[in-house]
């Protein structure tokens, strides 16, 4: 009988901040662009250049820290992490070691056994490195410093997670917070969010931590889950064989579902951290922190509660709507105009999400305006158009953000609601379909459905189906 082991997991999450310019210079952070076009003497480490801190980076870092219940370090500094590598033009990275900007916080997650607090050890600010391309053919390496100096925050958790579900729940929650703040788009696949997993195992019931490994190159939630399971198994097998886990950094290969050792603790470099003398300490005054706090948007948990009490929506709707700040905002704005929360929610949850999924788009990419969605809902409420026309119009609205009123008008999609006109058409239908009419009169109620269908066809779906069936019944 094998022993029982518990998994202990802590995370180091890097998030690329959505500032317009880099952390220490005025260069653009825009992705792509010809190699070394978003660069200047500062972010290419030219002699005599000096870094100047981008205030927005501090605002975002403090914002995330406040949302994660952290203490904000009132007097914080930048330190240099010294190591030689060509993607790092100065051969030191400006980061924070001794006095990180946020410390001792937590994020609450939902687990199978209820809610749980995951401790945040610290959040610190740092600069990203450039990108190296190795040209095997030419046997040379090329450096592109467009990414050099893009601001990052690193969030270091306490070893408070016990399984992959908790890890993904934490990352989901963190991602949502950061996205709500507008601090980053947090895309794991594109590297704007990167999570390294520190994992150790110990015998169930034990209080002491086992030797941990750090897993890198995890590019999706699935990869994270697989890597955690694989590493748990690997460590367990080592211990079962009476061997020891070595403290090391490992790299995950998601295609092979396998990790390999990159470097052990013995090879760990001495980074010779020391305070960067080119940057002055940041003194965060109460006013500054309050200014950031007061500009924080309502986060998901609060929004959920408010949506429940204000709009009386089902929990299912609220979960989906608050899952994205864009959706939530769109919902509220459209509802404010048309006063139909459930209708707005339905359009967003059903049609909008369907189209997003089809197009593999994120809610942030939605282009249509809340007033146009509200107008569409008003058109259906007034029965100016019927629901199938509305769906048609919505699709155009989704892609082109057209004004539905104008669109319906110019394309003549108004419901045929003039009863006289409709009676005329329906008489013709009855005349043309004697078999179905007979069936109906003989008690086959299904036949009515066929007649309604024929009528809709005739009116190019512009008629109100309920009105059609009422008139048909009368006429029959």
């Amino acid at each position, binding site marked *: 009988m094998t022993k029982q082991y518990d998994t202990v997991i802590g995370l180091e999450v890097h998030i690329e901040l959505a500032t317009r310019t880099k952390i220490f210079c005025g260069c653009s952070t825009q992705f792509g662009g010809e190699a070394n076009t978003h660069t200047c*003497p500062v972010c*290419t*480490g*030219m*002699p*005599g*250049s*000096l*870094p*100047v*801190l981008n205030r927005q980076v501090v605002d975002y870092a403090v914002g995330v820290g406040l949302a994660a219940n952290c203490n904000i370090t009132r007097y914080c500094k930048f330190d*240099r992490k*010294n190591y*030689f590598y*060509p993607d790092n*033009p*100065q*051969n*030191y990275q400006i980061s924070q070691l001794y006095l990180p900007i946020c410390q001792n916080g937590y994020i609450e997650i939902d687990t199978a056994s209820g809610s749980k607090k995951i401790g945040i050890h610290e959040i610190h600010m740092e600069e990203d490195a450039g990108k190296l391309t190795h040209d095997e053919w030419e046997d040379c*390496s090329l*450096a592109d410093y467009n990414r050099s100096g893009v601001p990052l925050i690193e969030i270091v958790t306490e070893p408070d997670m016990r399984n992959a579900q908790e890890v993904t729940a934490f990352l989901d929650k963190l991602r949502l917070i950061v996205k709500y703040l507008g601090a980053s788009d947090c895309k794991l696949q594109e590297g704007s969010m990167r999570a390294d997993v520190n994992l150790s195992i110990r015998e169930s019931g034990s209080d002491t931590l086992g030797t941990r490994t750090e897993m890198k190159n995890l590019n999706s939630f699935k990869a994270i889950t697989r890597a955690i399971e694989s590493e748990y198994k690997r460590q367990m097998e080592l211990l079962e064989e009476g061997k020891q886990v070595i403290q090391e950094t490992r790299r995950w290969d998601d295609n092979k579902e396998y990790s390999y050792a990159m470097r052990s603790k013995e090879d760990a470099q*001495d980074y*010779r*951290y*020391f305070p960067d*003398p*080119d*940057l*002055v300490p940041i003194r965060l005054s109460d006013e500054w922190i309050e200014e950031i706090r007061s500009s924080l948007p309502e986060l998901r948990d609060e929004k959920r509660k408010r949506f429940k009490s204000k709009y009386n929506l089902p929990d299912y709707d609220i979960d989906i709507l608050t899952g994205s700040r864009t959706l939530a905002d769109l919902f509220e704005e459209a509802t404010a105009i048309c006063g139909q929360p459930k209708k707005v929610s339905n359009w967003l949850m059903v049609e909008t999400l369907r189209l997003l999924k089809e197009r593999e788009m994120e809610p942030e990419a939605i282009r249509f305006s809340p007033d146009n969605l509200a107008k569409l809902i008003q058109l259906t409420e007034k029965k100016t158009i019927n629901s199938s026309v509305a769906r048609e119009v919505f699709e155009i609205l989704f892609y082109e953000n057209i004004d539905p009123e104008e669109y319906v008008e110019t394309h003549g999609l108004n419901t045929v609601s003039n009863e006289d006109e409709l009676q005329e058409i329906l008489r013709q239908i009855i005349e043309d379909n004697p078999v179905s009419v007979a069936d109906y009169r003989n008690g086959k109620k299904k036949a009515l459905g066929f007649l309604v269908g024929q009528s809709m066809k005739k009116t190019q779906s512009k008629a109100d189906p309920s009105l059609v069936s009422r008139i048909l019944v009368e006429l029959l």
Partner: protein
Amino acid sequence: MEILAYTAVELSEKIKKGEIKVRDGVDAVWDSINKREKDLHCYITLEKEKSYIQAEEVQQKIDKGELSGPLAGVPFAIKDNLCTEGTLTSCASGILRNFVPTYSAEAVRKLEAAGAVIIGKTNMDEFAMGSTTETSWFGVTRNPWNQEHVPGGSSGGSAAAVAAQECFAALGSDTGGSIRQPASFCGVVGMKPTYGTVSRYGLVAYASSLDQIGPLTKDVTDCAAILEAIAGFDKKDSTSALRKDTDFTAALQRGIQGLRIGIPSDYLGDGLDAEVREAVLKGAKLLEQEGALVEEFDLKLVNYGIPAYYTIAAAEASSNLERFDGVKYGYRTKEYEGLHDMYKKTRSEGFGPEVKRRIMLGSFVLSSGYYDAYYLKALKVKTLIKKAYEEAFSHYDVILGPAAPTTAPRLGESLSDPIKMYLGDIYTISANLAGLPGISIPCGTDSKGLPIGMQLIGDCYREKTLLQTAYTYEKAKGGCKVEKKSLSTIDFESAEADMRCKNDKTI
């Protein structure tokens, strides 16, 4: 009067009055360079053609009335660790032997905006590490007063160029005395302003928390005018100070009636050359006669300055110099196998021994396990030294002492004993550690005819007090004529001609 004998401000005055042209000043400087440069080697790079183009532009602006400041039309020399757009900026290092910046240092930009004409880039100790200008990859600079002697350092090229009239004024940088000590050795005025007064943007960093740019000049008036031109807040330098009191020239003639001057007893103790001591005390006496109250006092911690300085400066240097790796610019070794080998060879071949010594020292004091014992402790000493000065400045307006324990040593004498060389910084480095302004002014010569400098240190942002004291002294002493006279007696022909010149090395 011969053009070269004018001070910078006098020259500009003549130009603005139309008595001479900008070109005449530049001509005079090039004449002087032609005569003396091959012996002295003040410059690493000379920009003759550019200087005449610039002279023409400045002349036009003066004629149109667009330039009327005290430096309009003045030929300047710039230390080679200040970036100059389109001109080699080597820091006197083999590793930057081919580095031409695409931008100019803020101080250079401001000087040019004030109408300066740039003659060239001056020699220095490699990356400003040294006190003799002997560690330059381009060869040594000789002291114009006696070519057997060093000009001091690290801004030795700038000090020698001013003394030898190969320019009218120069910019240097001072991390532990690198402006004040060579000024003292070459008989010129040199000032290190309060940390943060002059933007460091474009100054290739040696020790970022101690580096300051400052002027080397013929007299105190020039010094004030140049400092006024280059001082000021710069948003490109986070350590730049926002200050409005940069009208330094206005303070010159205020006099020193009742000024309290303290002389630290330790500054007059062991290790101080008797002739230097005598000259400095004579200088203090003169200030007393001008109305100052002078007394000796005990400035604590003087002896801790050197170890603290060499720990902090080396630590910062070890990191600041990491970017010189052969990847992006500068020298790269010819043959190598792989990245690590390229780094190792490039840096082994590119840096000189003094720079390597400080990189190793700095890497050591920052390494894990030693950080607390050395680097952190040095920072604590720095704080204590600052406090000792604060205490001193509650009693005195100015602290007076020698700029260096001796006059200029003979060539070759210092490098053989680096510790002795480091000890030579004893009177200057604490001003850097405490971020204070300091000025060195000529106060006589020793029996060998070598100049002696008197140093005045002021409280933070009290450059005006220093300048008015120095100006009063200079006037009482009879102007800077003494030094000029001595200078004209130098026999340039007798110098040995074996000096390695910049042209000897292929770039």
